[in-house]
């Protein structure tokens, strides 16, 4: 192992490699699987980190022989040639290996004029892609840089920028950025200034190319160069980028108004990347003037992403920020102006700073209205999710305009103004806008806006929840927005008025009752999720509890435990689990609760679901509910809880669903922790430690309880479950138990004890290793190990090497598959068999 933890090439691999190379270079063999070749490249990247590559080349001459052999083929397989180029690039990334390859005269034949780039193979996109990637990997030092720049390679890369394959074109762009950064970064010793540009040779070639392209008449060349600059300024923030920019600023600026180039959206990206780079923050205001000009000249659709980016910046002139805000809010402002009389509400923006004509025309056109609004709403939602936003948004007006959009969308508002009526005509029934607006509305709930608009907000949301035209997806979003706003109610000044709160809640539950009976499972499920969410967050509020319990919702929820759709049953289980907190756990004397909510009945029902439901989701949900109850100590007194856990464990032990088992293990873990806390073992630092408790196994209360509840049987069986997460979890719990019991026990830690031969601890360990515990542990009758016997269990815990087992289980189950040796063996084994087993995809 190398110091960095990377593995050098093992002997076994070194023995296999020559045969693999020979097979790959053999034209008679069918082309190897691309995934194998990718994995081999990954392996060589690791090897490069682990040992000097020149040593790798010298120790394994088959590698250079492989390069030579592939280059000598008259018609190499494109994927093998591409692999060769990429492998050579990885190896040549280190300077002495580069020299080694050059001495063998291989480099020019791989990446130079004599190579594939002048052969028929170049027609294949994968070969070009391999060439670009190979060069990218290789150029990590001056020798390689010089080789590419002086050997004509750079012109090839310039051409590849316009490659018909998107992958090749973008890789070429990234490569140029890399070359430029490397060239300037490593060769430049004195800082540049704008007038005296002594760029290093390679950088000079690239910069000249960019400048020429920008000045050319070709739109595609201009776009390529703009993309290159975008990528450069996005990845490099060195001072020289500013010098580079100053030489091109004027030219780039002209494209803002040049319609023939159609590069506006690239320009927006470019300016945004620059705005994020501190280098451009003090360019005497000229850069920010350009940004302002862009915000003015680009269409609302193009400038909106730029505006959002600007608003997230912490270092930015206030004027630019205001401009960006204006761009972003313009559509929302237009909505308000179109919907209301000028005196009714002030708009979002001062008319003096903005010219709404462009936005108005977009909003009044059927083809652009919805897209513009969706984009704006999505951007607003994005901004609202930023924790430290450097600008203050006018939340109240924004809320009003979002509510107005929602009113347009379901025909609640048809204003008299020509623009307003046009927009309302376009938007009515538009699901896309509904969804975006509801998302934005939900995001706005975190902001304090005590305004009368909140009243109309609830009206609109209720209208959406009620309307039969609301689609399931829109309904789900309406529920989300409603629950977020309801949750923010207690803190809001608006609903100090208790009656209004009660009225709203009653209305909500009325709608919910209806939705819980929907014929559409998606709707029933979303309704139950909404209910659960509300209870989780509002269960401490009296008004909420009263309204809920006086409605039909709890009864309907219980009925849904029998729903034909398993997703719905699962959600009903979760809702019932939460409902229990309101109905009996924390309010035993609640007058409303009465006899109709019976704890035992619910528990029995959930137990029944756990043991009989044919689908996994409801059973998983039951496990989650039980775990939640146990966590919140709602399962009763000690004995009751012990009985409860024991029953659940018995039920789950034979479940086929791995997540149900995992849930049960979670339950067991919590139970164990509770017991330790209660009986004062070290898990709880504040618990009284009594030496008497730990002195003997017989008096070890937790151990007795765990045995009685038959936990060990479940844990040991889970240990060799075929689903690994189950085994891992069981092992974690057993390890914890071992550390508790064995640490505090006075018994000898070394000795395996004197269990009868053949059924001793060694045997147990062996059986565990073989993974055949289940059949070898029939029950506790006869000669088998008694899982309920504390003494045997203590011995088992002490003697089984759980740590080793834990390490084994935590290895990826495919760690063998991932080993390079396995990869090489697979490639060799496939040689000759590929024809037989035709690719046969399912």
């Amino acid at each position, binding site marked *: 192992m190398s110091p960095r933890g990377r593995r050098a090439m093992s002997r076994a691999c070194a023995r296999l490699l020559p045969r693999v190379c020979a097979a790959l270079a053999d034209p008679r063999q069918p082309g190897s699987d691309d995934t194998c070749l990718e994995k081999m490249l990954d392996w060589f990247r690791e090897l490069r980190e682990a040992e000097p590559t020149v040593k790798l080349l010298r120790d394994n001459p088959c590698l250079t022989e492989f390069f030579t052999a592939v280059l000598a083929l008259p018609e190499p397989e494109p994927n093998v040639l591409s692999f060769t180029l990429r492998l050579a690039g990885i190896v040549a990334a280190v300077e002495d290996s580069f020299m080694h390859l050059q001495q063998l005269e291989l480099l020019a034949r791989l990446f130079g004029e004599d190579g594939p780039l002048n052969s028929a193979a170049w027609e294949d996109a994968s070969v070009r892609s391999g060439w670009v990637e190979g060069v990218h990997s290789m150029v990590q030092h001056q020798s390689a840089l010089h080789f590419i720049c002086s050997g004509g390679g750079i012109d090839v890369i310039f051409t590849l920028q316009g490659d018909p394959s998107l992958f090749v074109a973008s890789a070429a762009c990234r490569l140029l950025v890399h070359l430029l950064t490397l060239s300037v970064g490593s060769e430049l010793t004195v800082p540049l200034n704008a007038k005296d540009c002594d760029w290093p040779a390679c950088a000079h070639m690239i910069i000249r190319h960019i400048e020429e392209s920008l000045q050319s008449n070709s739109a595609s060349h201009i776009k390529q160069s703009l993309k290159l600059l975008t990528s450069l300024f996005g990845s490099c923030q060195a001072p020289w980028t500013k010098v580079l920019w100053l030489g091109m600023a004027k030219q780039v600026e002209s494209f803002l108004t040049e319609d023939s180039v159609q590069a506006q959206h690239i320009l927006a990206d470019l300016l945004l990347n620059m705005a994020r780079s501190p280098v451009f923050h003090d360019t005497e205001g000229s850069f920010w003037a350009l940004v302002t000009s862009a915000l003015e000249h680009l269409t609302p659709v193009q400038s909106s992403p730029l505006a959002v980016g600007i608003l997230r910046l912490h270092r930015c002139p206030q004027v630019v920020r205001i401009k960006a805000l204006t761009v972003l809010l313009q559509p929302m402002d237009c909505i308000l102006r179109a919907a209301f009389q000028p005196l009714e509400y002030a708009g979002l923006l001062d008319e003096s700073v903005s010219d709404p004509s462009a936005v108005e025309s977009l909003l009044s056109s059927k083809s652009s209205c919805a897209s513009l609004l969706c984009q704006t709403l999505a951007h607003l939602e994005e901004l609202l999710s930023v924790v430290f936003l450097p600008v203050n948004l006018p939340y109240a007006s924004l809320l009003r305009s979002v509510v107005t959009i929602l009113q347009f969308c379901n025909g609640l508002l048809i204003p008299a103004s020509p623009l307003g009526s046009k927009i309302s005509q376009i938007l009515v029934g538009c699901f896309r806008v509904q969804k975006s607006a509801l998302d934005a509305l939900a995001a706005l709930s975190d902001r304090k806006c005590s305004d009368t608009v909140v009243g109309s907000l609830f009206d609109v949301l209720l209208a959406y929840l009620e309307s039969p035209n609301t689609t399931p997806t829109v309904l789900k979003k309406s529920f989300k927005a409603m629950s977020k706003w309801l949750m923010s109610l207690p803190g809001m000044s608006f609903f100090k008025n208790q009656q209004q709160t009660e009225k709203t809640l009653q209305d909500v539950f009325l709608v919910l009752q209806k939705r819980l009976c929907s014929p559409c499972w998606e709707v029933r499920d979303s309704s139950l999720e909404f209910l659960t969410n509300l209870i989780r967050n509002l269960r401490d509020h009296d008004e909420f509890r009263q309204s809920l319990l006086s409605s039909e919702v709890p009864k309907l929820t219980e009925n849904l435990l029998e729903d034909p759709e398993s997703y719905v049953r699962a959600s009903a289980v979760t809702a019932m689990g939460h409902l229990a907190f309101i109905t009996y756990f924390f309010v035993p004397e609640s007058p409303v609760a009465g006899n109709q909510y019976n704890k035992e009945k619910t528990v029995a029902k959930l137990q029944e679901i756990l043991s009989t439901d044919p689908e996994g989701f409801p059973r998983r949900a039951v496990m989650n509910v039980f775990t939640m109850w146990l966590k919140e100590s709602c399962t009763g007194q000690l004995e009751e809880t012990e009985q409860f856990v024991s029953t659940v464990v018995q039920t789950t032990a034979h479940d086929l669903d791995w997540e149900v088992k995992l849930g049960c293990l979670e339950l067991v873990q919590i139970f164990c922790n509770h017991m330790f806390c209660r009986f004062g073992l070290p898990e709880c630092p504040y618990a009284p430690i009594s030496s008497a408790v730990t002195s003997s196994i017989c008096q070890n209360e937790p151990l007795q309880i765990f045995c009685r509840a038959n936990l060990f049987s479940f844990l040991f069986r889970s240990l060799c479950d075929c689903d690994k*997460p189950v085994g891992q979890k069981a092992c974690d719990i057993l390890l914890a138990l071992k550390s508790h019991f064995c640490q505090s026990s006075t018994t000898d830690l070394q000795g395996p004890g004197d269990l009868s031969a053949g059924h001793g601890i060694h045997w147990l360990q062996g059986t565990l290793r073989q993974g055949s515990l289940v059949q070898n542990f029939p029950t506790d009758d006869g000669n088998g190990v008694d899982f309920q016997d504390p003494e045997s269990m203590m011995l088992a815990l002490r003697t089984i090497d759980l740590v080793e087992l834990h390490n084994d289980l935590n290895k990826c189950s*495919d*760690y063998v*598959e991932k080993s390079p040796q396995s990869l090489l*063996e697979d490639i060799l084994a496939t040689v000759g*068999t590929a024809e037989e087993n035709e690719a046969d*995809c399912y």
Partner: protein
Amino acid sequence: MGSRQFLFLKGKKEKFFCFAEGFEEVKRAVRTRQSNLLCNVFILSVSCSHFHLDHCGALPYFSEMVGYDGPIYMTHPTKAICPILLEDYRKITVDKKGETNFFTSQMIKDCMKKVVAVHLHQTVQVDEELEIKAYYAGHVLGAAMFQIKVGCESVVYTGDYNMTPDRHLGAAWIDKCRPDLLITESTYATTIRDSKRCRERDFLKKVHETVERGGKVLIPVFALGRAQELCILLETFWERMNLKAPIYFSTGLTEKANHYYKLFITWTNQKIRKTFVQRNMFEFKHIKAFDRAFADNPGPMVVFATPGMLHAGQSLQIFRKWAGNEKNMVIMPGYCVQGTVGHKILSGQRKLEMEGRQILEVKMQVEYMSFSAHADAKGIMQLIRQAEPRNVLLVHGEAKKMEFLKQKIEQEFHVNCYMPANGETTTIFTNPSIPVDISLGLLKRETAIGLLPDAKKPKLMHGTLIMKDNSFRLVSPEQALKELGLAEHQLRFTCRVHIQDPRKEHETVLRVYNHLKGVLKDYSVQHLPDGSITVESILIQATAHSEDQGTKVLLVSWTYQDEELGSYLTSLLKKGLPQSTS
């Protein structure tokens, strides 16, 4: 394995339609440059052809993690079965710990809530312009081919399909929809597959022999799809041969799978539907649910276990137990990726390193039987013949084989065939016929003028085309003027014709008049007092040439309505006047 397609339909408005494909592919597309496609272009809708993971595996990632918020279209069975397989996929991935950033059960559910289920041959209007339609694809239960139409341009995406019916599914079918583009899978681009019957016979023979000599047979499968086909095969064979060895189907998926096969019986083939009246084919008598303790039972048995590549879970566990006995057999019914135990044993490796450096020696017999349901070369050609596309695009296949098929398609059908590599853009030109609304008045007038309309012959119509608000209307010029509030301008064409005639001007005019009157018997030819001649709106005046008195210049002018007559007249006059009229 797996592929992805993004499709632009450039019509009046740019449309973007996407077929959800394998998880890794979409993830890579999102990560690399193609993410720009996803972000910059509004994705209108996504459709998913069937429940196999290389076709639906990326859906939750796409809708819940990348943030796609639009509708997803699937057939009813696919919608029902998809979550089961996605759960299984999630389990294996989480189990292997390879992927930490993976979707959760909740995400799968949320994704499924966005799915709009469609019926076969039902036209679904996605928005005003875009519509989709599903066709039966065979392959697996619920598999569909999708036709996407924008205006008059259309594309068919096949997903995976099968052109030969099997034991439980019918053959793919599409009508002669003549799409502009057919995107077809080409897994078996060059293969003509040997008869299904032979393969089945082979399979049964091998299973039977193993069971007879007391061995155990392991068949690793993915829970749904081919597994049901093989179950029916074995069930009928067991029944016929009266065999007693137990057959098990592992995991809790079997009941659920059979439940869905029963539920969607209309999607299976005719035979199953017919026998359904007496007996449901999916209620197996011989096939029982598997308990993991059974693996150690002595004696012969057949077990179907998941997953299909022997890379984790139950199938791998059973394989480990049985591998050491040469009496046993494992039958791999499908493709395995490199690295999996399935791939290793198929390529002939017999000593496998397991966890903890243990070496597992494989003594059991290893068999490979291809049972996947893809169309072979014949099938692909047959589908092209059925649909009659104008262009074909091959995906989901190997380059060399696709090249061969491409040539064959181009030769036989004379259509363009494309096979773009990943990341390559293909542009296809179409000749859209643009529908135009015609006003009733104009239609009546035009039909009144001409002969009786013949439905088979195209008819030329004259009118004014108004292009407004993305709509095209053909109306009469008068109506157009009225609608657009424009005044009418008269446009006259003029032409000078030189005639050699030494006589006086009025005499020349008279000669012309007589000549025309003789030729144009159906028209009203008038000689006006001012010396000019009119034929309908055509006006003819004669003047002497300023330099040569022997030449007369005839000035002919006409309105555009009489363009035909005007041109005819000028050409007539250019031939000169007949001598007889003199």
